[in-house]
């Protein structure tokens, strides 16, 4: 309490600011794999959904504090991946945007795609994930996963001549010659915003990761073997937009589709290794997601806002192994959120979200066995965590409550999430504690100039 009073006394300068962070949208109920923004809440973060938002929010720099790792990293000795850039596991990133006459330009560093990381991890050779395994149970000693995108750079350029438009090319490359591994990714986002509609096309031009290296797993009876593996993305597309039915009502939606081919040169997946998963040769994969929704906001109490939305998101993933893996995941989340200026220097926000319908009907995701899934163990754990395991299941425990705050220091704003730690300070364990010790998590700073 004392600390809170001190902080409160401290924040003596004031003004509202352009909102621009993942923390704000997460507190208001954003639930996108790549935290790319929301159609019905205006925020500078929406540039990763529709780059034309650079015309609305310019002349600022944003710094998202977090770890400097990859979006997903295999935890040594396990079949699990630690993921970043999710709720309470932020990834360091940031950028700056400047208006120049009728144009706006900007650069953003470190916004790697979680979806891309998920697909490359799922596309990794099964035997490569067991490299170094010394026990038949096959806990992974050193998983030699395909590289995921790293050190990504996004450039933005937009203009406003009645119609707001922008382009956002993005690329990343990496290599590790000790593994004969390399990866590259390139994409371009195109967007437009008119008076009562907006539209965008986010095009994945290239996503490729490959490695050729020696794999050995004594515990599985696999001697030193050269394994060549590759993930090669096809042209991917996310097309979407929104239409304003009235001043405060929008319908919105998108379609995402990414196809890829993954290949694995390891030839001994049968026999004693049949339960490992994996398949020799080339396997095709496909990720499709549809989202259709309605969102609204209305002002209350002189400028505070209440947001509501309902939508349906269907995600289909196919991995065409001999025993085909399928994700069929459908949720209908309802989101109700608020944002209120508690004082001149403090903005509070929060939301509650629940799927009024949620069901997964998946095949061969995490059913391990000789006739089970062929997805590698790290990939199957990750996919099951996001979209559920094998079989038909209601998406359980979908009710979530999120909260956040902005501390306004004039042109400088600190955003963050509230209540994400336990009373003992354990991260990402919402137990209804407002901890002054960990005042904000997923903190981001925005400076408007």
């Amino acid at each position, binding site marked *: 309490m004392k600390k809170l009073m001190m902080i409160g006394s401290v924040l003596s300068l004031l003004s509202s600011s352009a909102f621009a962070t993942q923390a704000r949208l997460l507190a208001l109920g954003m639930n996108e794999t790549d935290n790319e923004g929301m159609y019905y809440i205006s925020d500078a973060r929406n540039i990763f959904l529709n780059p034309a938002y650079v015309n609305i929010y310019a002349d600022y720099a944003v710094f998202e*504090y977090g770890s400097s790792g990859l979006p997903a990293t295999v935890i040594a000795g396990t079949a699990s991946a630690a993921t970043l850039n999710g709720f309470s596991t932020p990834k360091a990133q940031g950028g700056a945007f400047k208006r120049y006459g009728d144009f706006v330009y900007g650069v953003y560093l470190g916004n790697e795609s979680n979806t891309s990381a998920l697909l490359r991890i799922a596309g990794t050779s099964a035997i490569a994930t067991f490299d170094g395994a010394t026990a038949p149970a096959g806990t992974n000693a050193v998983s030699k996963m395909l590289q995921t995108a790293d050190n990504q750079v996004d450039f933005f350029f937009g203009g406003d001549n009645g119609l707001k438009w922008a382009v956002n090319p993005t690329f990343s490359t990496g290599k590790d010659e000790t593994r004969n591994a390399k990866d590259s990714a390139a994409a371009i986002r195109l967007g437009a915003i008119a008076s009562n509609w907006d539209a965008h096309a986010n095009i994945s031009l290239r996503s490729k990761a490959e490695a050729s290296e020696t794999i050995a797993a004594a515990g599985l009876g696999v001697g030193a073997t050269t394994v060549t593996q590759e993930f090669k993305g096809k042209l991917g597309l996310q097309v979407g937009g929104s239409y304003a039915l009235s001043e405060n009502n929008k319908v919105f939606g998108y379609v995402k589709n990414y196809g890829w081919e993954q290949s694995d040169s390891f030839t001994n997946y049968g026999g004693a290794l049949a339960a490992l998963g994996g398949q020799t040769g080339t396997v095709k994969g496909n990720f499709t997601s549809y989202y259709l929704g309605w969102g609204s906001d209305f002002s209350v109490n002189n400028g505070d806002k209440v947001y509501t939305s309902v939508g349906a998101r269907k995600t289909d993933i196919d991995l065409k192994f001999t025993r085909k893996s399928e994700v069929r995941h459908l949720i209908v989340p309802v989101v109700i959120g608020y944002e209120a200026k508690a004082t001149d220097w403090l903005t509070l926000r929060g939301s509650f979200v629940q799927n009024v319908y949620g069901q997964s009907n998946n095949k061969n995701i995490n059913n391990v066995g000789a006739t089970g899934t062929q997805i590698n163990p790290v990939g199957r754990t990750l996919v099951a965590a996001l979209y559920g395991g094998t079989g038909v299941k209601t998406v359980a425990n979908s009710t979530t409550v999120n909260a956040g705050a902005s501390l306004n220091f004039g042109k*400088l704003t600190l955003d963050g999430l509230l209540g994400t730690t336990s009373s003992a*300070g354990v991260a990402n364990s919402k137990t209804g504690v407002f901890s002054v010790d960990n005042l904000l998590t997923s903190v981001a700073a925005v400076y408007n100039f």
Partner: protein
Amino acid sequence: MKRNVLVIAGLAVLSTSAHATKARMEALGQNSVRGSEYISDTRNVFRNPAVLNSTKNYLVTEWGSQTVADDSTAAPRAEGGFFREMGSFNYGLYLGNDETAQGRTQAAGTYMRQDNALDLFLGGDMGVQWGARLHYANAKDQQTSAFEKKNTAFGLGLGVVIGEMEAYTNITLADKSTGAVVAGDEFKTKPSYIVGGSYKMGSNSLYANYEATKVNVTGNAGGATLGETKTSTIVAGWGRVHEINPTARLLTDASLHIGSGQTTAGKTKENALPVTLGFEADATSWLVLRGAVQQNVIINDEKNAAGKKITSANSTDVNAGATLNFGKLKVDGSIGTTTSAGVANTENGVLSTSNLLTRVGVNYWF
């Protein structure tokens, strides 16, 4: 409660700070030991001692442990100094400045590294601002092992500031450790140096430096690389300090780093183009906040002694810091370096009031 009221009352005496700590440099993506090539900071005296002529009359203490391990963000070493003008000259004394360890860890079976280091500064302004720094460290241990462990180091820094131009050199004249595993082992730094300069054009600065080091280890490796190790690095960059208003600035830099190394195992190379975007603003009259995002862009690879290249992974880094201004007293520190459970040096975006500032440095100006 009373204490907090006192703190707040204390924070009512105000001014923009003259900045001077490692925490500030790190929050802005700069070198914490030598300071910045283009951002004004008193830490820059370790790059160019002539800067002493424009940053003087203060005392700085960097909080940390007494360990002789390397200074780092996670485990800062205690150090501090005192800088003062005297007529037309300026002088300074700095204790505990951490010079490079070059593989010496101070663990059992390794070479003794520099300890209880002392840096003396002298500068003057005769139209041309000049400065010099003498670095000295000496230590020995005849008690822990059956043989004597010893280290002696001398260094010299020289610099000038002529209008908008700066030039400097820092030379390791000697840095010799003997006795790692047995008597007669030797770790010897041959003359090593960094030479560089910068030129300011309004808010923009161009800078470049060249650094070469050479170490020879004979007898037992003692934790270091046996034989001769040479490194050389060329840095050429551009930096910009964009003053938005008297209380806020944006900081941008891009620099090309071309590095190479030579050990008995072979030759290594390292190339990078780090880009930094940062800000520093007076949030209130008593609080300065700063931060930066940095990432290697386009050029970003290392080649090992076997000739294999690898991209330097996870180079995106965001740092933050703050200065609490109590009039002549400034308390600098880093923000967001601990987890919610208080684990140090784990950046995961937590604003913890329990560990409000880390790597704290305090300046008192007089």
